């Protein structure tokens, strides 16, 4: 029998059929591919929003902690107090409630009139991430020795210049691992987007599962893609980290 040695084992044949059913048939891979693009889009813009918000909140909070004792009474002091209070409320609420609930509140209540699910998700995840980034950045700023701050001021730099040229560059290096971790968490957190009907990658895999009644292929595929993205990103960060470190001791 010349064909016997070419015969495919039964389990492999089954795997092939499953693969065909879940991804090729009806172009079902499109659910995952389009979902992946949505996941990346939401994560990318949420990260940017999160960093911006985080840095602003961190600067408000650490400026308040550093300067409020030395400030003369006046408008500046009152404004700083109010900003700090707003920042604290923001941090407490965001860190005290689940991100899924925040997402649903954003979609069904705050932006109930909007149909742009991607935008709503970006705002919800961005505001969520911003709270965690703020605490990371603040701890980075506070970890820099006060002598660095005084050295900057004694040369004639004002508060903002000292922050930009001296404190933030050093703080950034210290917090890079924690920031990277926050973004890894964020990209995985976007997988709850399905709760507001946004078809991200997780939702895409789930749609395939509901069509084919076969869970293994689509869900494992989705998991693997997340894993690859996270591993790729981790590698990138560790390279950047090594670069920053070697610049100090050659």
């Amino acid at each position: 029998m010349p064909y016997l040695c070419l015969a495919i084992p039964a389990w492999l044949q089954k795997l092939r059929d499953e693969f065909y059913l879940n991804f090729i048939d009806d172009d079902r891979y499109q659910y995952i591919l389009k979902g992946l693009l949505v996941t990346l889009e939401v994560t990318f813009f949420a990260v940017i929003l999160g960093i911006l918000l985080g840095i602003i909140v961190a600067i408000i909070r650490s400026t308040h902690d550093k300067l409020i004792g030395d400030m003369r009474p006046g408008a500046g002091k009152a404004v700083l107090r109010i900003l700090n209070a707003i920042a604290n409320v923001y941090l407490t609420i965001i860190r005290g409630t689940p991100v899924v609930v925040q997402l649903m509140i954003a979609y069904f209540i705050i932006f109930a009139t909007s149909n742009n699910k991607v935008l709503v998700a970006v705002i919800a995840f961005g505001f969520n991430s911003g709270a965690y980034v703020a605490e990371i950045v603040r701890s980075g700023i506070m970890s820099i020795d006060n002598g660095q701050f005084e050295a900057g001021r004694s040369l004639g730099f004002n508060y903002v210049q000292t922050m930009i040229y001296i404190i933030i560059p050093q703080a950034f290096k210290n917090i890079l691992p924690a920031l990277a971790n926050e973004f890894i968490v964020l990209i995985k957190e976007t997988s709850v987007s399905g709760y507001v009907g946004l078809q991200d990658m997780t939702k895409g895999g789930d749609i395939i599962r509901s069509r084919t009644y076969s869970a293994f292929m689509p869900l494992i595929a989705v998991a693997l893609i997340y894993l690859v993205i996270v591993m790729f990103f981790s590698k990138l960060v560790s390279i950047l980290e090594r670069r920053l470190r070697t610049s100090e001791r050659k």
Partner: protein
Amino acid sequence: MKESNNGPLISIKDLKKYYNGDEIKALDDISTDIYPGEVVAIIGPSGSGKSTLLRSLNLLERPTAGTITFEGEDITSPKTDINKLRQKMGMVFQHFNLFPHLTILDNMTLAPRKLLGMSKEDAEAKALELLDKVALKDRANAYPSQLSGGQKQRIAIVRALCMSPDVLLFDEPTSALDPEMVGEVLDVMKDLAKDGMTMAVVTHEMGFAREVASRVIFMESGKIVIEGSPDEIFNDPDNERLKTFLAKVL
């Protein structure tokens, strides 16, 4: 110098610094003048307020009451641009406070470039010239972590000099150094004194105070107990408290 040359460069009048209301009197009614070209050594037991006095001169500490006039301007007035004045008052710290993320050259050129608008070339030429004076020109591209304590402090001094200040404030510049490195830093300070730089030095180095200072201020409990020429202070003083202090440190 804008003022006439026979007037004081810095004039301190009734300076007070209280903590916790008036519970702790770090500075208790200090008045004294510093003239151009003078080297004023401030000595006294720890907790006597000598560092607080020095740090008040460039407003790193905000005095509770009293005035400090620098080149004819009341620096304690809210209208004064303290950042402009600090550019003319260099400061050297006990713990050097070099910027660890920048090379020696960048440490020195950052402030002249950003604050005085010097070109990169001009700032670096000046920095290299100063580095040559302290025999550290070959370390221009090193990072602070690669230097010894004595080298760091010499860099800190020339970093302050890059701004061409009218006065240099030293806050215990040799206290954090290994004993064998104290000499190299004091030598740099002696050369500066010889060149006519106005200096205020908080120090525990009685040898330096005796040899280099043109005037010595002895402080205790936030007050100036006695001030005078090194000769008057060190050779057979008749003040009891000064005698006790000198007996301990000499």
